[in-house]
């Protein structure tokens, strides 16, 4: 059955190969997403490097209806990438995957699960104890009998516990996520549609001869239903599938279903769905329709949806949405048959509100593995830290020892200087010389010429100095000066005081003390005689 994947459409790698083998050379972990239906499956595989996801995808006409064949196919498929770390997400649709939405009274957290399981037992067609069962509370609403939780649950029949082991064998631990197509689409729509949670949204999807409908309230899947539509002939479904997997030689079925017939079938299916939904959840207004139908039907379905359901219709088949989705996912945009295989579109992150039907034993094994890995990392990091700190300390010690050695040798060298022992002798000699110099050599005192220079630079023509006596007293210079002032009689006094003022303003003068004045007059000519003392620095 490996030949079933000989061709597939999808994004090609740089070397143009189509095979999952081509992802091995990246060496990076590979995420394989399997959309397993009853009679068919589609898959995508993506390996992530730093810049771009490399992705291949394909399909096969094997499903869990024939579990042995599916097991053979999967073992051959996974064998090709057995040497690479794998993460496997599984989306299961068809009769084995049952989804139910219902309300339970608002009870305490500890009681919720018991109440929920009690209600679920009545709603599920198989025994819940053996099944893989998951649920989430979508909303809390006020109801006639009191507040209630809106619950969305899904269960996979107990067969799958054994089937998972049979299908995946050694790769079972690589399986990390099992869910339904509706919830998987919810993940994708959150990425693909802006403000997805703002408006209640109806999903219309044609997948082979199955019409899938879902209603998303506040961004969460609240209701999901798959309906086999008889009018979509089986031939057409087979044709679609073969075309999807790239078998170009397949003969086009004679009786192609016209868009009108498709719309007619959908009208009936959607009418039932909305009636049921409104009956269960109240009259909620559907403001948006997301259409995932093959391109030949998309315009007719869009027109029908706009007329009958909501004006805001998003046709995922259009190029703009595909391009945007590709850009967000960081992969090349080659998305033929996009609406058909979108549920196997890779999405690495499993979020807290996703319902994961992975069996508990596998979950705990994975948790154990993660804990072991974390323990290993903690140990390695701790040892690295300790080693680094130790090495740094050793390096610091070595560096300080080298510095100590160099300082020691410098000190030895300095101490060996022959001058050092003579320092005291130098001190004594210098002291004696200083004493001699202080005693015999005059230095540091003002020159006796200083007062003469001061008198010279402040001289006035009208003032004549007759006698200048300069004494050196206690380090400063004292000058006693006497003289006369000549010139007009009425100006002599002013000239004298101007002269004294100019001396006082000289920076080198400490003090000027005027002494006696004597005025002599002869034949009308006056002579003003004066004495004053002057202290200079």
């Amino acid at each position, binding site marked *: 059955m490996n030949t079933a994947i000989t061709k597939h459409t999808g994004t090609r790698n740089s070397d143009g190969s189509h095979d999952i083998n081509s992802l091995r050379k990246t060496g990076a972990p590979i995420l394989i997403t399997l959309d397993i239906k009853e009679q068919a499956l589609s898959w995508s595989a993506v390996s992530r490097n730093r810049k771009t996801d490399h992705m291949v995808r394909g399909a096969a006409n094997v499903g869990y209806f024939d579990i042995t064949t599916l097991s053979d196919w999967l073992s051959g498929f996974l064998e090709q990438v057995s040497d690479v770390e794998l993460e496997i997400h599984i989306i299961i649709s068809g009769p084995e995957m049952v989804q139910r939405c219902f309300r339970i009274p608002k009870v305490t957290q500890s009681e919720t699960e018991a109440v929920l399981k009690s209600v679920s037992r009545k709603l599920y067609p198989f025994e819940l104890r053996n099944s893989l069962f998951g649920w989430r509370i979508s909303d809390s609403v006020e109801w006639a009998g009191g507040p209630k939780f809106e619950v969305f649950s899904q269960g996979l029949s107990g067969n799958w516990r054994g089937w998972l082991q049979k299908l995946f064998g050694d790769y079972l631990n690589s399986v990390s996520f099992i869910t339904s197509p509706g919830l998987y689409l919810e993940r994708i729509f959150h990425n693909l549609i802006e403000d997805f949670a703002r408006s209640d949204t109806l999903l219309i999807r044609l997948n082979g001869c199955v019409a899938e409908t879902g209603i998303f309230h506040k961004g969460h899947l609240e209701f999901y239903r798959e309906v086999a539509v008889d009018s979509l002939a089986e031939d057409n479904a087979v044709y679609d599938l073969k075309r999807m997997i790239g078998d170009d030689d397949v003969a086009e079925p004679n009786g192609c279903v016209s868009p009108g017939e498709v719309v007619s079938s959908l009208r009936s299916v959607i009418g039932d769905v909305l009636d049921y939904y409104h009956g269960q959840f109240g009259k909620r207004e559907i403001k948006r329709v997301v259409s995932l139908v093959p391109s030949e039907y998309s315009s007719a379905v869009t027109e029908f949806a706009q007329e009958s359901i909501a004006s805001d219709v998003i046709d995922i088949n259009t190029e703009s949405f595909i391009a945007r989705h590709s850009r967000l996912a960081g992969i090349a945009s080659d998305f033929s048959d996009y609406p058909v295989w979108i549920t196997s579109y890779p999405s690495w992150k499993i979020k807290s509100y996703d319902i994961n039907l992975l069996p508990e034993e596998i979950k705990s094994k994975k948790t154990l593995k993660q804990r072991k890995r974390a323990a290993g990392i903690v140990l390695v990091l701790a040892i690295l830290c300790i080693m680094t700190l130790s090495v740094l300390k050793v390096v610091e010690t070595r560096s300080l020892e080298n510095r100590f050695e160099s300082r020691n040798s410098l*000190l030895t060298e300095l101490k060996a200087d022959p*001058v050092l022992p003579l320092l005291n002798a130098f001190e004594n000699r*210098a002291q004696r010389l200083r004493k001699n110099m202080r005693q015999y050599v005059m230095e540091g005192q003002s020159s006796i010429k200083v007062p003469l220079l001061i008198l010279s630079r402040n001289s006035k023509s009208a003032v004549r100095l007759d006698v200048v006596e300069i004494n050196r007293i206690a380090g400063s210079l004292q000058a006693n000066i006497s003289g006369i002032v000549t010139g007009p009689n009425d100006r002599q006094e002013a000239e004298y005081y101007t002269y004294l003022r100019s001396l006082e303003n000289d920076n080198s003068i400490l003090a000027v003390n005027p002494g006696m004045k004597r005025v002599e007059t002869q034949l009308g000519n006056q002579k003003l005689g004066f004495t004053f003392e002057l202290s200079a620095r």
Partner: protein
Amino acid sequence: MNLKFLTEHSLEAAIIVVLVIATGWYFVIYDLQTAGVDDIKARIATMDDEIAEVESDLQRAASLRYEIDKYESEWENFTSSLVSTENTDIVLDRLRNQAEDYSVHILKSQFDFAPMLVKIGTDTPKPIADKAELILEGRGRFFAIGDFLEMLESEPVIADVKFVELAYQKAVDPEIYFKARMDIFVLNDLKENQ
């Protein structure tokens, strides 16, 4: 059972092992290493202080040598300029010649010496030189006298110019009469070696 428990709680076990190893390592190895490092740092600090001290001593020695050289040269100049009391004429002649260089005329000079008996009678150590008082009288232009006085102050044997009197005597005479009193060093007749 224990092995299973450890496997299931590997993360907790790893954290405990890490804590134990880290604590042991810290107290047994790291603490000792740190103490060793601190010891070396302290020794280096002490050594740096010693180096600074020795460098300071060397700088001081260099500075003292410069000072000694300078003072010795000046002292040499001073002692070589000293004359004995009998040879004061030599000093006077030199001063007179220098005065002529400044266009200053020495008209009168007078030496006053301390009495010999006073010097002999004291117990104090005898210095290399004694001070004698020299009075110079002369005439010259104002600035020439100033320059001459400045030259006198730079003379090694002249201790101090203590007094100067300038007198302007005649209006027609541009020269000024001066009288300068100064201490001058002469070789001590009873000197002791310095």
